[in-house]
């Protein structure tokens, strides 16, 4: 079985068919969908995609492969699910449709997922070699035709190409010996390192750990494997389940004090961790373990109590881009705004903040033109606010926004909310010291 078959929906556990049939075709989702707004094409709307998945399940398409483009262009942002009167889980249904079309997923991606889980050291060293090539000006060699692709790591190669400043050290090395981190048995929080901050945007991971330490006391590192989202979205469900089991077992073995939150700083990954129970609907024992784990997972953005954040007078005008899997995947909209208000004294609202930026994992590589169109609209909305910093909570958003801002609005930078908090804390510490010495 290459599909889930059953889903956890807002209305309870449903078969995929029942979940798809819950779409009454009212069309209220259309304007929430960035791909429909960009194309005006019904098959590229949530309603259209739901109907196609439903037809596939009913055997109503004589050529199911004709639905491939409609399904592959879905950003999985979930904005439709938020506005849908019945909260039809379109992203999950689209993924079911994709799985039905592709079977067990591309071999290359499965190979990478296994490598990440089973031989993390080898994976990390390959990645670092890729980055070195990139820094040596051999990006094409490394990414387009080079080492990573030869090793069957094409998606990774594409991502490496996206990074402006490839890190010379990965996050694991950066966090060695940090004072905020201690034994799990005494931890006030446990940092779950998502692949983005861990392998690409290490600055985000460093900031998150510093902020969690400053606001919540000493914590621990989860030493987790990849959450499995890559396999869930683009590869094989068994791979995703294997990743989830590994994460859950690691969590259970860590011996954290009861109630300790597990905190991640890439919202796509965190939303997926929170949805683990859906992977195990047919396995009661694992479902219970997944529920126990998911109940502890927190997005780093949820760990920023505004009353404990320092006011940073130097922070320029700021705006929030609603990371899809934070707002639509986890239903968190107020927290990043409250944090910015506390830090900067205000938060400028951009138009359609809840619209996807077009990053969306691998979307930017697969559907470059559509992705660029969404990115332009997003950067225009940011520029309209005249903000100089935009907060976003996932790796994919940060990479995409950085690319867009560099091209169209270079006065503005993109940062994870924890980065802005970390900067404010550091500034306060410096001025406090100066004050002390003065």
């Amino acid at each position, binding site marked *: 079985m290459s599909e889930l078959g059953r889903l956890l929906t807002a209305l309870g556990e449903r078969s995929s068919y029942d979940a798809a*049939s819950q779409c009454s075709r009212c069309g209220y989702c259309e304007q929430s969908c960035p791909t429909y707004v960009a194309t*005006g094409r019904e*098959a590229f709307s949530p309603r259209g995609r739901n109907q196609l998945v439903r037809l596939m399940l009913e055997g109503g398409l004589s*050529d199911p492969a*004709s639905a491939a483009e409609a399904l592959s262009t879905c950003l999985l942002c979930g904005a439709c699910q938020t506005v849908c009167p019945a909260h039809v889980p379109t992203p999950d249904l689209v993924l079911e449709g994709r799985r039905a079309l592709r079977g067990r997923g591309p071999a290359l991606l499965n190979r990478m997922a296994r490598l990440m889980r089973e031989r993390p050291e080898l994976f990390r060293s390959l990645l670092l070699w890729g980055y070195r090539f990139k820094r040596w000006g051999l990006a094409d060699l490394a990414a387009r035709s080079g080492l990573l692709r030869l090793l069957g790591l094409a998606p990774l190669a594409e991502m490496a190409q996206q990074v402006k400043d490839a890190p010379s050290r990965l996050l694991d090395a950066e966090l060695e010996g940090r004072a905020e981190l201690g034994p799990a048995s005494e931890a006030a929080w446990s940092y779950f390192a998502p692949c983005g901050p861990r392998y690409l945007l290490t600055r985000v991971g460093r900031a998150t750990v510093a902020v969690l330490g400053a606001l919540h006391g000493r914590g621990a590192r989860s030493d987790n494997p990849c959450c499995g989202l890559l396999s869930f979205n683009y590869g094989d469900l068994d791979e995703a389940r294997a990743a989830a089991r590994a994460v859950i077992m690691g969590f259970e073995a860590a011996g954290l004090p009861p109630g300790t939150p597990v905190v991640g700083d890439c919202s796509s990954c965190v939303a997926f961790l929170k949805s683990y129970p859906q992977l195990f609907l047919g396995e009661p024992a694992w479902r219970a373990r997944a529920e126990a784990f998911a109940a502890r997972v927190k997005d780093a953005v949820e760990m920023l109590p505004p009353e404990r954040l320092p006011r940073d007078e130097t922070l320029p005008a700021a705006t929030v881009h609603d990371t899809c899997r934070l707002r639509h995947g986890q239903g968190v909209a107020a927290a990043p705004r409250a944090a910015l208000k506390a830090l900067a004294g205000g938060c400028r609202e951009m138009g359609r903040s809840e619209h996807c930026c077009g990053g969306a994992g691998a979307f930017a590589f697969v559907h470059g033109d559509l992705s660029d169109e969404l990115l332009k609209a997003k950067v225009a909305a940011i520029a309209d606010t005249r903000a100089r910093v935009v907060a976003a909570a996932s790796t994919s958003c940060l990479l995409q926004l950085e690319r867009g801002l560099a091209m169209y609005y270079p006065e503005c930078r993109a940062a994870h909310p924890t980065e802005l908090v970390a900067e404010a804390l550091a500034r306060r510490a410096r001025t406090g010291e100066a004050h002390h010495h003065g």
Partner: protein
Amino acid sequence: MSLPVRELERALSGPVLTCEADLAAYAFDGAHDRARPEAVVLAGGAEDVRRAVAWCAARKVPYVARGAGTNLAGGCVPVKGGVVISLARLNRILSIDTLARCAIVEPGVVNLHLQDAAAPLGLFYAPDPASFKVCTLGGNLGENAGGPRCFKYGTTTNHVRAVEAVMPDGTLERFSLEDPGPEVMSLLVGSEGTLGVITKAWLDLLVVPERVVTILAAFPSLDDAMACVAGIVAAGVSPRVLEAMDRMTVESIEAHIPAGYPKAEAVLLVEVEGSPSESERDLEAVREHCGRHGATGFRVARETPERDRLWEGRRSAYAALARLAPNVSVEDGVVPRDRLPEAARRLRELAREHKVEPALLFHAGDGNLHPNTIYDERDRTQTERVKAAGRDILRLCVELGGSISGEHGIGLEKRAAMAWLFEPEALALFRRVKESFDPLGLANPDKLIPLPGEAPPGPALARSPAPLSDAAVSLVERVREKARSGSPLFVIGTGSKVPGALRREQAEVLTTRPLASVRKLDRANFIVTAEAGITMAELKALLEPEGFFVPLPLVPGTLGGVLATRPWTGIRDCVLSMRILLSDGTVCTVGAPVVKSVAGYDLPRLLLGSWGTLAVVLEATLRLLPRRPDVPNDLPAPRRSAMGPWHRRLKRAFDPAGLLNRWAEGAGV
């Protein structure tokens, strides 16, 4: 699939979609039925629409224009295959003239986007269908869509100044209210894409009121709530919205969010607006009427967040039901306002017979009711029960003196039910109008009009027309005699606009002047039916002492003469229906005698300005006001002009033998 679509694609700037998934995605709208097209044109501009229509006309391929596809009556479903012409990409607001308070838009503009563009200028666009966040203005025009605000402001047609449309012959035409001759613009609005495809529209914007006050009141019974509504309207208060919900709707809302609505048999949501003093005065009037009719709860909100909270429940009514089952049937009927409680009672009985449980939502101010029934379309017998109940409810609405659609349109689902509302002669006239514009029958075929021989269950015509007056009967008989001999007809009112010389040339002058009675004054609903020969002065003198005001200018001549010559474009806002006489002696009723109906072609408005060249008006049903309206009386003499090509086509539909009032067909007086 045999359409040579690549040839079509070469002619267009936008793409033509033909893969199975795309065709499947255009097989449905917001209603039940499905049918796949053979190709979909994503039009890139009006020229694409024109070329696509011309291509279809040359190859006799049927086509359906589509906006957001949120239609609730199957109007966008391509039942005969062919081509779907998507207007979704024609989504530019071309201009907003704040001085003229007019927006020029393309049809794919989302209703909300026009609202968003107008708001910073202190303006708003009045029609607000429930789907306003996604539905397009083109779709609104096609269906003559309404919304809660249309109690005060009317449906879409009341906010249109002009349209540009691709006609079935592939020409691009502009029709404006300023055009002399019959109101072809009014005919196109609400014609559901069966007569042409609107590619540009000039829409009215209104000034945002200084203040809006939202009121929520609970009542021990629906009768009490509706009596309160009647009292508010009769007192001359003109609320911006007057919404009612029954207990089942309130309970489903409360189970869903909860909105803190009182658990009562009926809840009213009322909004009054105006200057601070006007809105306070109206608020007090509403408060008094609520108290008088036993309201058990009364909440008032003047500022935005509190107002939004009162609205939250009403706005969530659909979502609350949509969570309970895969499908929600949103039925749409109208009854005279004072018959809403009776309609609700009988409707529940009908529902019980069919074992369905509709939750009731009313635009109570205009008698528009929405029974919303949850079901699972995969369950065939359940679906059939819901549909059967819906049909019975529509029939009930007609029996009670109402209409089968207040704002959703007819489309596919209510096509057969048209025969309950309109006489066969009226349906035949609709067919001839359709054929005159679209002789090949390609523009959204098989919608809106029952197919020949298609009959709904039960006896046709759910309410019989009232007998004609003796004077009218004599006129009809004389016309029939003349029709038999093929003699030309010269029919006028007092003749105040007819050149005297012309009149003297006629062998026989027929006049409507003896048809001078008020046939029915419906005091509870502020509606009058009067014969066409009554003079404006007589009509006003009869009604005004009773506190009823006709929003028509006081000019010399008869009511029929004013309607036929249209000295002021504002007269269209009060015309609800007409009893007309065709040159072959046929009598039929067009429009519906309720303040809100979008069923069938808008022939009453089409006839405005037709100078008696299409039909003779025997009776007109008009909307009355409880206060003296601001209507201009000092008007220039109305203009007559040469017939345009579309007027000539209509002439053939109404008066194929060309007997009626030929004098008025020529150029200027």
